[in-house]
């Protein structure tokens, strides 16, 4: 299968590394031969009909920070690459943008229009235009999968839609952002202030220089919208979410909660078509009480009862579990 990678940062490069590692295994287990025919970042596009040398692409990216330095690469944009280069599948891994959805939105739409399947980790376009994207994919008869957009390596979308396909999901609660979970967990354990732990997390590279998306609950809200649409069939968009972040949580508040047997977690919840992100008191013994940077989701199912999944919400390599599972699912479907 010929694939194109759009966005060659943490996730795009992680995919290249895992494809190298699993080349043989994918062939043996699934008869799947992945050939990456193009890679695009903001600088341009590297392209090779017979498949790029991923080792070389990785070293070019590492050493020069721009894929345009790959031998023969051109100043070609993502949309152009999708329109002009022959391939079956596009992996979209550009930064999430919750204001316009761009550049991901245009990449995905161009992919569908060109009759290409799309796999993405980019939540912005989904949180803003879920319905439009899904219907465009359907109209063009291509697959569109986005397991990596929610919870990184934690399987939740495909779990609900495929494994739990006989159930109706009536409500969802979860911790969908690793950074805030890390901050709250550390405040709880060490009794430190929010500002202190945030600064520390930034120094360690766990939190972005601009942490707004995480600590204000915006990232969690985007993922919640995707879950509401994808597994509960609710036609919601980002502006429908009631959002409160964790910036006002204090060590004293955490201590008071603890005395009553609670921890404080930033929870995304979909219930009765109502979407909310807010810090909540979670009983210490509750399955949602997971520590560190982990993500967790609890699905309330009409037949199975509660099903809870825990996993790493991010990571260059870990997130590839989700991306690979989507690529393999598409491969299995199209090869018949």
């Amino acid at each position: 299968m010929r694939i194109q990678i759009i966005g060659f940062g943490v996730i795009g490069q992680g995919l290249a590394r895992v494809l190298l590692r699993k080349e043989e295994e994918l062939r043996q287990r699934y008869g799947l031969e992945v050939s990456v025919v193009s890679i695009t970042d903001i600088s341009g596009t590297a392209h090779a009909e017979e498949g790029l040398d991923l080792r070389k692409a990785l070293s070019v990216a590492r050493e020069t920070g721009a894929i345009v330095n790959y031998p023969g690469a051109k100043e070609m944009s993502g949309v152009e690459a999708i329109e002009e280069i022959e391939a079956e599948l596009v992996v979209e891994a550009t930064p999430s943008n919750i204001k316009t959805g761009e550049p991901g939105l245009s990449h995905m739409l161009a992919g569908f229009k060109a009759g290409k399947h799309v796999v993405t980790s980019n939540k912005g376009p989904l949180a803003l235009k879920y319905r439009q994207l899904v219907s465009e994919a359907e109209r063009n008869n291509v697959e569109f999968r986005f397991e990596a957009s929610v919870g990184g390596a934690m399987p939740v979308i495909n779990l609900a839609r495929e494994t739990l396909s006989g159930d109706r999901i009536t409500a969802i609660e979860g911790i969908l952002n690793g950074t805030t979970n890390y901050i709250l967990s550390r405040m709880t354990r060490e009794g430190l202030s929010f500002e202190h732990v945030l600064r520390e997390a930034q120094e360690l590279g766990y939190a972005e220089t601009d942490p707004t998306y995480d600590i204000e609950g915006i990232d969690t809200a985007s993922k919640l919208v995707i879950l509401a649409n994808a597994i509960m069939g609710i036609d919601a968009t980002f502006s429908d979410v009631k959002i409160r972040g964790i910036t006002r949580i204090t060590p004293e508040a955490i201590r008071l909660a603890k005395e009553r047997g609670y921890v404080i977690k930033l929870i995304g919840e979909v219930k009765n078509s109502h979407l909310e992100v807010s810090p909540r008191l979670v009983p210490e013994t509750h399955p949602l009480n997971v520590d560190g940077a982990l993500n967790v989701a609890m699905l309330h199912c009409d037949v199975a009862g509660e099903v809870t999944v825990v996993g790493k919400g991010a990571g260059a390599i870990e997130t590839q579990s989700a991306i690979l599972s989507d690529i393999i699912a598409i491969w299995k479907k199209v090869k018949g």
Partner: protein
Amino acid sequence: MRVSLDLELKDEPGQLLLALEPIARHSGNVISIIHLREEEKLRAGYATVHFTIDVPDKGCLERIVEELEERGVRVTKLGEVTKKSKLTLLMIGHVVDTDLRDTIDRINELEGVMVSDLSLAMPHPEKESSAIVDIEVSAGVDRHRLMERVYAIAKEKDLEIVRSLEV
């Protein structure tokens, strides 16, 4: 609905069954049966048994009572049990300076809602403090309305509210 009823049964074998049959026939579900002690007996030769049952609706309950009476079982007490649930709220901000008493009174004003427990943490007089309260919520109270009231108060007093998950 959950109801509690005291039944007077003859102090002899087989009487319990006499009471259970009508309950089962009209879709009642027995939650507990307690035999009241000797000194609480109203009549010699009779024992008072305290039942808690769940019934689908009032109609079923009426039919159960009717049938019990027909069988000579006296219903001496009957009442609906209101199921209470707990909600815990953590408030962060100037909880004391913004009149904690008033905050609690305004929550209590809602019918079926009662603040039952409170702890306070004040790290420093100038800094934000926090309070955690348990609220007992009777069955039938609209939790959504309750939270709307809480958030309105919080907005007015610039308090951050952290509420418990519904479990």
